[in-house]
């Protein structure tokens, strides 16, 4: 049964990838054919070259999505400030937002703690969400990014004022290869879900047609991992004690045990 489900996914993947590759290839091949014929018309040459570059970039993005999703990345956890991730990710997309007439607003909770997360992957997740939001707001709109902290969790919300996602599609959006866009591999949100789950968190979406969509990521607060020196100290605290006079014990353990008097278990 699982194998059949896996095969179905592989089948869907093959169809989606074929669609996402052969369509841009059709444009690239066709406009290249026409370029040759229109070589004496500079305006047309310019316009066709632009389309070819656009479609090649799209092919590259498809490949990037597939690679991002397919590779087995071992999460690299470290001290991360979600607010910093938001700021950096917005900077990366600032130009795109300007071109798309997207106004980006933030409401970041300064009391958000530094947590032990995978910053690179969370940044990619946020970028995926922000790009989706911008694409959902054809002609422009407002993109809001909020962070807040609860007793147990860090919460990140990305809201847009876009077209919204119909209810029957909303429940499928985190499935790999499901897409509501005309163009897209349907891997961006599946990747987001996987990353969030690697953090023991959850991702949810609420949407209203013609009003917009909000994605909410809830990540349990994970304090920074203890430093190596702290780890050694804590190990020493529980290390088995030896008789300081035991000639078979190592000099180090005899020294430690002498410092912390030997106690018989009662």
């Amino acid at each position, binding site marked *: 049964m699982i194998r059949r489900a896996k095969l179905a996914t592989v089948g869907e993947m093959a*169809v989606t990838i*074929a*669609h996402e*590759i*052969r*369509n*841009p*290839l*059709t*444009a*690239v*091949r*066709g*406009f290249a*054919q*026409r370029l040759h014929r229109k070589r004496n018309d500079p305006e047309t040459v310019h316009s066709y070259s632009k*389309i070819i570059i*656009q*479609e090649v970039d799209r092919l590259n993005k498809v490949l990037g999505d597939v690679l991002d999703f397919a590779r087995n990345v071992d999460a690299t956890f470290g001290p991360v400030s979600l607010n910093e991730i938001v700021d950096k990710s917005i900077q990366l997309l600032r130009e795109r937002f300007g071109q798309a007439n997207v106004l980006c607003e933030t409401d970041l909770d300064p009391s958000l703690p530094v947590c032990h997360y995978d910053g690179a992957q969370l940044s990619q997740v946020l970028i995926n969400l922000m790009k989706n939001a911008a694409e959902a707001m054809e002609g422009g709109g407002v993109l809001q990014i909020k962070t807040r902290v609860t007793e147990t969790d860090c919460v990140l919300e990305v809201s847009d004022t876009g077209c919204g996602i119909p209810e029957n599609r909303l429940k499928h959006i985190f499935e790999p290869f499901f897409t509501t866009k*005309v*163009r897209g591999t349907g891997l961006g949100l599946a990747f987001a879900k996987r990353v969030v789950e690697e953090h023991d968190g959850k991702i949810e979406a609420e949407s209203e047609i013609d009003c917009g969509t909000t994605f909410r990521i809830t990540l349990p607060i994970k304090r920074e991992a203890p430093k190596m020196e702290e780890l050694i100290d804590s190990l020493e605290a529980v290390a088995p004690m030896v008789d300081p006079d035991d000639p078979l014990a190592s000099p180090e353990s005899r020294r430690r045990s002498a410092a912390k008097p030997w106690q018989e278990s009662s």
Partner: protein
Amino acid sequence: MARILVVDDEPNIRRLFRDELEDEGHEIEQAGDGAEELAEQERTNPDLVILDLRMPEMNGLEFLEKIRKKRPDLPVIVCTAVRGIEADYELWSSRVSAILNKPVDLETLKSEVRKALEKS
């Protein structure tokens, strides 16, 4: 000269086919998906349709089924990125003029358009 309707959700592909077929002297109408196309079809009453199969609102096979009820003999050339035996069987059963694989060679497209229009 013929009135040709290009139905494809890819704007660049619609533009490509339009430019190429307009150079041949045809008049081109475009639609972004099957549902839009049906409304368009009522309006333009084309001599031939170039149809993509995988579209967001109504897929090409659904469209074919509906259009055949109204225009049983309308020449339709299917242009698809993904082929399958079942879809091919359905397409031939729906008497399509040709099935072209993307990426399409423009010379092949024009030759199939000519053949389909001659037959009709």
